[in-house]
């Protein structure tokens, strides 16, 4: 590893904004925050607040029986907005199934995001439009995809020098959690990415819980320590601090993009809500645990910072709340209005090229269903 890489690894927990909303100087990472002005700070808060409002609306929709499932992200907004805002549009993102905040930073519409959970799509949005891949439900299956995508970037940029890569090159961000960290595919993905210097940032949101199993069952050491074992720099960052996450991810993307290989980021955060709407955290964790993390809420600390430094006033927050309600109402309306595609559509999507079995079964299906149409038609007469 280069000196710079070790410098990143040796920082300890990177924190720029304390839970009390105080901004700390940072010799290494302040250089990655030079462009962060008041507008951007308000923008980050807006991103996080809208994401939380969306999350709340989607949770309600599920509770009302309108979604098959919802995966709340409350508590993880800073980790997602900070990292997502560090990417370039040409970078490719592999999310898990909880990256609603990252999706916002990639301009995936909140409404579109509900198509998967509404049960009318297996994916939901067009990954090619925003270089934001579909959610992956099989834990860690997206990790080798990220390494392979990074290897493909290397193929495309074969022969580019470091400066050209830094300026024009692409990178990949692979999101995963402390739960996915133990899957074999995470290990293989990290080996492959390191062996081939793939430009991948492995971004772990360590939210302390893999559904009901606490982090200390997943690992005896902080995950950041694993980076050295693979030969890449590792950064542990306060995941509830949007500025620290932004700076660390920018550093990591710069490192990866310029051809120096992958980076592991462990963002320390906490899932304030349930794993999914099918989960019941009261069965496995103490409310004291949740109460201890509540004051570290990523929105609270940025709000405190914005208010105390007079970057945002009451009118800003009031307007944002109104905007959030408006967005939520639109999302709800859109979700309820999604047409349900006929099963016949699913036949067409199994293969890219013509397939005799699909054609045969589709023909049977259409004929069978048409039989019911005839019956109902006859009844009407």
């Amino acid at each position, binding site marked *: 590893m280069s000196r710079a890489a070790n410098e990143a690894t040796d920082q300890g927990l990177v924190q720029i904004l304390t839970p009390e909303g105080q901004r700390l100087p940072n010799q290494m990472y302040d250089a990655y925050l030079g462009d962060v002005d008041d507008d951007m700070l308000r923008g980050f808060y807006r991103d996080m607040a809208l994401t939380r409002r969306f999350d709340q609306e989607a949770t309600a929709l599920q509770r009302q029986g309108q979604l098959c499932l919802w995966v709340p992200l409350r508590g993880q907004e800073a980790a997602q907005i900070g990292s997502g805002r560090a990417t370039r549009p040409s970078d490719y993102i592999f999310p898990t199934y909880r990256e609603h905040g990252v999706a916002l930073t990639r301009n995936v519409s909140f409404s579109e995001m509900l198509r998967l959970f509404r049960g009318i799509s297996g994916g939901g949005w067009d990954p090619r439009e925003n270089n934001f891949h579909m959610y992956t439900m*099989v834990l860690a299956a997206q990790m080798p995809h990220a*390494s392979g995508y990074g290897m*493909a970037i290397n193929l495309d940029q074969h022969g580019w020098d470091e400066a050209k890569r830094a300026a024009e090159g692409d990178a990949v961000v692979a999101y995963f959690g402390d739960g996915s960290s133990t899957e074999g*595919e995470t290990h293989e993905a990290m080996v492959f990415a390191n062996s081939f210097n793939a430009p991948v940032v492995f971004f772990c949101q360590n939210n302390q819980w893999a559904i009901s199993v606490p982090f200390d069952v997943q690992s005896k050491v902080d995950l950041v320590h694993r980076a050295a074992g693979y030969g890449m720099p590792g950064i542990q960052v306060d995941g509830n601090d949007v500025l620290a996450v932004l700076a660390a991810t920018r550093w990591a993307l710069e490192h990866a993009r310029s051809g120096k290989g992958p980076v592991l980021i462990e963002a320390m955060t906490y899932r304030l809500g349930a794993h999914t709407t099918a989960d019941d955290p009261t069965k496995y964790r103490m409310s004291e645990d949740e109460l201890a993390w509540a004051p570290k809420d990523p929105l609270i600390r940025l709000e405190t910072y914005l208010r105390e430094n007079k970057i945002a006033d009451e009118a800003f927050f009031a307007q944002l709340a109104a905007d959030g309600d408006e967005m939520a109402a639109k999302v709800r309306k859109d979700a309820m209005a999604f047409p349900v595609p006929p099963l016949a559509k699913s036949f*067409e*999507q199994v*293969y890219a090229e013509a397939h*005799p079995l699909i054609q045969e079964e589709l023909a049977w299906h259409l004929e069978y269903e048409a039989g019911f149409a005839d019956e109902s038609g006859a009844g009407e007469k």
Partner: protein
Amino acid sequence: MTLAKAITNGLDKILQSNDRAILMGEDIGRLGGVYRITDGLIDKYGAHRVIDSPLGEAGIVGGAVGMALRGISPLVEIQFDGFVFPAFSQITTQLAKMHARSEGRLTVPVVIRIPYGGGIGSIEHHSESPEALFVHTAGLRVITPSNAHDAYWMIQQAAACQDPVIYLEPKRRYWLKGEVDTETPALDAFKAQVVRPGDDATIVAYGPLVPIALAAAEAAREDGRSVEVIDLRSLSPIDFDTITESVQKTGRLIVTHEAPTFGGIGGEIAARITERAFLSLEAPVLRVGGFHMPYPISKVESQYLPDIDKLLEALDRSFAY
């Protein structure tokens, strides 16, 4: 040329004509693969296109999926049939479903080459026939050549296909020699082929058992029986039209594969042909396959594998109806 060399030449052709095509697998670079199928290709195309991967089948297949998402056409090698299972989740939950999940927006034209089948006197996990598991998975295509000419063309057809293709290589036939016409493309990769015409019974075989089915048909001729042999070639989709046409003529059908009979492709063919050609059948469709056991120790594998005598015995049973 040998079937192995035909695959090598096919891969060479793919790499030459498509600079977005790459090969990846364990020991496929410097060594040329444990069966030397990729021999010499690293020198010709470089280590960035003929990639010696770390050991990790999920990483290989998952990596190929990621590459395909950026427009690369990866052809990956799994070293042996029995070693594909660490990649099984990637193949079935990711590769096979990507096109459907994305509502047809994403294609992942990955080719997975797997040497398969027994009869080589090897130790465990080196002689298996796991094709039914892939055939059962919608979204995948599964093909297997039985001769050098098909091997040369079908690997290229697999690479050109926009769907993921499992390309099963009959490893005990790697050294089988045959003419390869490099000018005239083979039949559509997803069609079956009548490789020996006959009138009294049909044997459907694929991959390593095609030469055995042909030999059984020859032996049956001495008993005055005219046996048609169909090389299935594609296991998903299956070309039922060609089989149906044959059975409508012969009235008798034997399906053979090394894979266990139970839950195997023979059962699917038997059911479909019973539906399609019920009134033409003179006897039930019979199957000659492996037993319901892990692939046996090599010293007794000859008793496990379908052979000429087992096929003749099945023909006798069929004709006894």
